[in-house]
């Protein structure tokens, strides 16, 4: 019947109309809750985006949004600076930490691998932000503001390279962003030869000089996490003190640029409670606003509070150093004796076990950590005076730090004694702030000090070899970048 055919065709037509309409745009799907990263050289970002990018670098540096910064810049700063030195035992039960404490690490050590990656991730993040901000032509971003943003990012990059060169020696230096818009090119170009130590320092200094001119004055921003000229000068002082041939004139110069802008807090313990953030002594401080913010500082919970055997437990030697010095103020602000019930061969009495308690907030994630504070720079200035045989001025600096914690002036009277007095003062003042190992390393004292360490039973603990003053290059990185070479000895 003819009707049927008509019906069939009409039915088909209706269906075809239904299905073919509205399908043309179907294939054009775009990300909604993420944004497309531009190729830096092609980007033309807005002022707001520039601000978001610098926020990203700050956040990443301290570990926001699962960024790696907190492991490298906070947790492992203490592992690398204190556990590796004579300040702490590894504690806990993590084999990687223990290997660092005991100098048995090799290229497969998880901490070493993580630190290399985390450090470079922060650097790459800064590289990406620097390149994009540099192209911003939005008039809403003033030239001064733009310069400041670039300076802040370059300072953070320099800070990470400074850590890296001290940990590994020669390393690849990458200062331009990789192009995320082309994985293929990226894979071919992401390797790279390591640069000699001097070249690494040249790049670090270059960033610092730029930052010094570009960033805001001390106090321009109420948050001490925002990089100021004071932070840059302080970092420069530390760099010149660390290079293989320290430039003490430069150390003195940059310390003097810093010191007038800051003052010591009257009460040492106030530095580490959570009510004195951004205080007058703080030069560069990572601020943590707790677990309701994008990242809370969870690190203190690894050292103290209820729970398992703690990481980074203080050594007998350090506790003795505090006791011998009669340094109750700093001891009490740094270490708590607890009864936890897990004795070990270092601390055999379960009722008297010391834990690291300098970072007071193990509950809410609000403990800040100082990257640089005034006492560090004062003592560095003392070293610079001492290097020039100006014992009196060196003592003046040391005594400023001692007076605050009710200790008598130093009795060191000659250059050699003063050097040891400053070393000890730095150890007690800056314990668990990630400084000790680097102090021992830059003064050439690491091997001697470490190989004299004994456990509770009087047994020699370590046999540090010269090659172990540098970490091995992680095996994974060697596998991924054939241009890298392993540090000698590993």
């Amino acid at each position, binding site marked *: 019947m003819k009707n049927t055919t008509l019906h069939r065709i009409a039915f088909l037509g209706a269906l075809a109309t239904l299905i073919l309409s509205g399908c043309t745009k179907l294939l054009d*799907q775009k990300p909604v809750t993420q944004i497309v990263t531009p190729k830096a050289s092609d980007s033309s970002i807005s002022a707001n985006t520039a601000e978001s990018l610098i926020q990203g670098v700050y956040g990443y540096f301290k570990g926001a949004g699962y960024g790696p910064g907190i492991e490298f810049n906070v947790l492992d700063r203490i592992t690398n600076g204190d556990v590796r030195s004579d300040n702490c035992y590894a504690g806990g039960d993590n084999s990687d930490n223990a290997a660092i404490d005991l100098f048995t690490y090799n290229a497969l050590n998880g901490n070493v691998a993580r630190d290399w990656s985390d450090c470079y991730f922060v650097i790459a*993040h800064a590289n990406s932000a620097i390149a994009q901000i540099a192209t911003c032509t939005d008039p809403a971003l003033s030239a001064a503001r733009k310069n400041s943003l670039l300076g802040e990012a370059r300072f953070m990059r320099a800070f990470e390279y400074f850590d890296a060169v001290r940990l590994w020696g020669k390393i690849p230096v990458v200062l331009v962003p990789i192009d995320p818009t082309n994985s293929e090119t990226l894979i071919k170009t992401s390797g790279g030869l390591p640069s000699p130590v001097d070249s690494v320092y040249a790049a670090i200094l270059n960033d610092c000089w730029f930052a010094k001119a570009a960033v805001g004055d001390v106090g321009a921003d109420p948050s001490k996490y925002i990089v100021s000229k004071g932070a840059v000068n302080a970092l420069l002082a530390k760099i010149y003190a660390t290079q293989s041939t320290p430039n003490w004139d430069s150390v003195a110069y940059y310390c003097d640029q810093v010191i007038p802008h800051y003052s010591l807090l009257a009460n040492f313990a106030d530095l580490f409670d959570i009510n004195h953030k951004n205080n007058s002594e703080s030069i560069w401080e990572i601020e943590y606003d707790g677990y309701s913010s994008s990242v809370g500082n969870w690190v203190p919970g690894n050292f103290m509070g209820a729970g398992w055997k703690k990481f980074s437990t203080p050594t007998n030697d350090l506790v003795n150093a505090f006791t011998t010095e009669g340094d109750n103020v700093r001891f009490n602000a740094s270490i708590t004796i607890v009864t936890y019930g897990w004795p070990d061969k270092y601390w055999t009495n379960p009722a008297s076990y010391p834990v690291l308690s300098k970072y007071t907030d193990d509950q809410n994630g609000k403990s800040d950590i100082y990257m640089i504070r005034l006492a560090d720079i004062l003592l560095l200035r003392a070293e610079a005076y001492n290097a020039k045989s100006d014992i009196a001025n060196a003592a003046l600096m040391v005594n400023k730090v001692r007076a605050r914690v009710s200790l008598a002036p130093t009795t060191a009277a000659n250059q050699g004694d003063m050097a040891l007095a400053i070393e000890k003062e730095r150890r007690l003042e800056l314990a668990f702030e990630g400084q000790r190992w680097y102090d021992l390393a830059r003064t050439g004292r690491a091997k001697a000090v470490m190989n004299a360490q004994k456990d509770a039973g009087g047994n020699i603990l370590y046999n540090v070899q010269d090659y172990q003053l540098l970490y091995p290059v992680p095996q994974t990185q060697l596998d991924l970048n054939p241009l890298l070479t392993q540090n000698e000895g590993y």
Partner: protein
Amino acid sequence: MKLSILLILFGILQARADVRAQGSITLNMQQAEIAKVLNRIEKKGEFRFLYNYDLVSLRKKVSVNFLNSDLPTALRHLFDGTDLTYKVLNNNLIVVMSSGPEKQAIRITGIVTGAANELLAGVSVRVKGTSIGTSTGNKGEYTVTADENATLVFSYIGYSDKEVAVSGQNVVNVQLAPSNTKLDEVVVIGYGSQRRKDLTGAVSTVTAADIANRPIVDAGEALQGKAAGVQVMSNSGKPGAGLTIRVRGSSSISAGNDPLYVVDGIPMTDISSFSPGDIETISILKDAASASIYGTRAANGVVVITTKKGVAGKSKINLSVYGGISSSTKMLSVLNGKQYQDYANELNAPVVAVTDSMVNANNVDWPKEVFQKGNQQNYQLSIAGGSEKTQHYISINYLNQKGIVKPASFDRLTGRVNLTTKANDWLTFITSTVLSRSRTNGAKDNLSVAKGGVVLTALETPFTVPKFEPDGRLGYNALKGWSNPLGSILGYYSKSLNDRLLSNVGADVKLFKGLVFQSRFGIDYQNVEATSFTDPFLTSNVSSGNPSDHSQTKTTVLTWLSEQTLAYTATFGRSHLSALAGWTAQDGRTNSATIGGSHLANEYRLLPWDASFARDSIHRPGTTAIDEWALISYLGRISYDFDGKYLFQANLRSDNSSKFAPGNRTAAFPSFSAGWRISGEDFMKSQHIVSELKLRAGWGQNGNQEGIGSYAYLPLSDVTVSNDSSTNGAINPSTTAPASLTWETSTQTNIGVDASFLGGRISFSGDFYIKKTKDILYDVPLPAQSGYKSAPVNGASMRNIGEEFLVSTRNIVKGDFRWSTDLTISFNQNKVTGLLYGITNSPSYGDVSLNGAGTPQHAISLAKGYGLGEFYGYVAKGVNPENGHEMYQTNGDTLSDNPSPTSRRFIGNAQPKFVYGVTNNVSYKNFDLTVFIQGSQGNKIYNVGRMEAESMLNSANQSAAVLRRWRKKGDITDIPSVGLPNNSLISTRFLENGSYLRFKTITLSYRFSPKWIDKLGLAAASIYISANNLITITHYKGFDPEVNSTGNPIVVNPNGTASSDNDARNISLGMDSGAYPQSKIFLAGLNISLK
């Protein structure tokens, strides 16, 4: 178009005087059916005809040549030699009817039985040449009205069709013979079905019978050992845990390796919401020739699932119930309190860490405390039936599983309605709808003790640890601080609620003879709510970050599908042609939102989740994510055979995917296959050995885009959502873009043979294939200075070569005792043939976090020339009797207890050389016994659990094996001394043979005789008992060799960052990181059919 009304009308009109038709006819047609000629005349517009389509004479073929003929002349000529006559009504309306003696329609009844005289229910009974038909009831009975000279056609799955002439009889009883060979069965393929006889591709099938009477939760389990070429691995024994299914090996690295599922025509990636009891058949399209109709999603094979449909006739109501208990297949022994004290004090010497009073105070056998009896129950009720016009299948299923480790459980309620209705003789509507709600209560498995993994915690919590502290908090190991296993059981939960609505509606339109237009629309809507909570009080001695935690993610996924196809079939002499052309569009959109909080005051901890969440003192900022993809495709297929002997098929599918850059979105995938049915040749007719013999060969290409992120071709940055203004809105780069991201392409060549011998007593099917995949998405790990962990590129190639065989024998077929055997065996060799940029060895997979170390070590390498899942580590050479140090082979021939990383080497592979399954069915009178054995051979497992339990590095309890540990100089043993990290490096020491042979299912069932149950109003009833995983023969030292810790499908992160997870799933095979063990299940079940 009710013909009867028209005929009545005609009867009335007949009373009037004849009307003469006006007009002339010019027409030339050769060998055309009379109906077609009438149709053509009608089309010229002057005449309209009314006739009964069923009149047989209308099918007679005639040749006509009219030149301006008037109607009477033309029709007289046309109807010459037939019984047809006509009447002309008004308006040139002509009624055509039969003038022959009125054929007597009679009522025919009968009973259909099988070979053993058993009554067969659901047998299709059709009157040949008509659309009239019915199906047998529960006692095999049927009633049909047909012409006294009609022929009835009886067909039933598994039996040969039988035609019987009615010859005026009122009772026609029929006995059907089991089909001679599997080649007679109809196999569902992509967008259609084919007789196995005519298949030219490699297709395995599993039917409802393979699923029945087994505690199958996910339909994928039914494929294990039953379908050659398919490897099915349970990831763990956790209720609701997923499966790893590989069809002919793995072919991807960073994208997906799971097959595509097509359920009643809707492509999908997850079938866990369905009741296996609703499944009629499962076809696995394995080679390119059969799968390429699914184009870019078919490279990993396609599993086509068809659910049960109603059959016209009396309603059949079936009820299946089973219940059972489960227990661990094996227990591992650990140190008791005293032995632990001995160990711990040796570790901590000279300190006495564990005192006698600690040993005496508590003695909790933690493994016994944790591993309990689980249970499982399942209820399925279905009603199937319908009229000639409308058929229905309605079912409801409830399944409940309680695991052997608390609190793991899974339950699922599923309802299904499948309907087919014929609107008229050319239009049929088809719809099916499933509603399902499943609830999973998770257990923390595959995790180290430090992360609260309940399985390892059960093994590693010393017996000296109390269940509770005096204040009511959970007991913890004073030496270590991790909570006892109750921390994961009482102090924590992770629940998910998954609601799913899957519905499709479609129409089949018969356009012309042989041409059918099929239209389908489907939606798949899922709403998943994943909720977790950590109790602040109970767990407060546990260091798990925050003292409490609330987290909830709600995800909705809406996928829709539109599919329009035209199918054409025709026969020309001995040639048969069928063709298919189609267009489909599919779109999937995922929305998710996550909230969380922490720091809950203890007093609120017992409130319901939402109430306690509201009282958290810290709330994390909420985040949302959206992801959407679309695929528009054109597809076509031509099948041709000559005389059923020479078979050819070609497929082409062209896909356009939103996942790739504009300009890069289109790809086409062709395939060709051919078959030669040698047994159809005359020269084979004279022998009786070979009943069927067919050679098949096929070549084709498939694509893969599953697992590739929706926006993976773009470099993406995340935007931080935060409560603090300093980072809120911060931009962080997250992924890089492969500029030319494209499909992975697999090219597969398949050669197969199907044969049956001795009248079907033995049937055999074998296939050999080579599958080469190029442009494999490979997330290339990058040096850290790039700032990205990895960059995805289409940068790898892989090859799979394999053979698979299916042998079915009917060993004893006569008398009361019957026995048949099915054997499947599948070999596959997988090899990475190329990695871009000179990468030859990338040992960054198979994460091992020994004792919860923050940075994992790696046990697996991705390496050129090796298969996926290649273990990489040191070669352990035993314990040095001098100092108790484990010794390892170095690069030279020396041994060292501190080997350099460069002395690691390839030490074995996680992929089996072959997997197999053997099913024996034995029946004696009313008893049936099924014994299903399944196994895997030649695969290695890295036993992370043992590595941790024998590491002797901390105060965790240890495996009883450490009783053999080295203690003093001169001890000769295989277990080294305590306290040295280097004693448990990733090495051959913890790499074990994972081969196993398992009695997967043993089922004994009894069918009640009809005479017994008749009085109860039942048509059929059977009861059974079944043992699952009863015996496992293996050397594996862990809980169970059927394990794959990284196999669980990880929900693709809506921001497209799932690629690294895919890496783990695809490469990190054979890892046992404390997986929830498989269980032994004893079941009893009952199946009944109501009258």
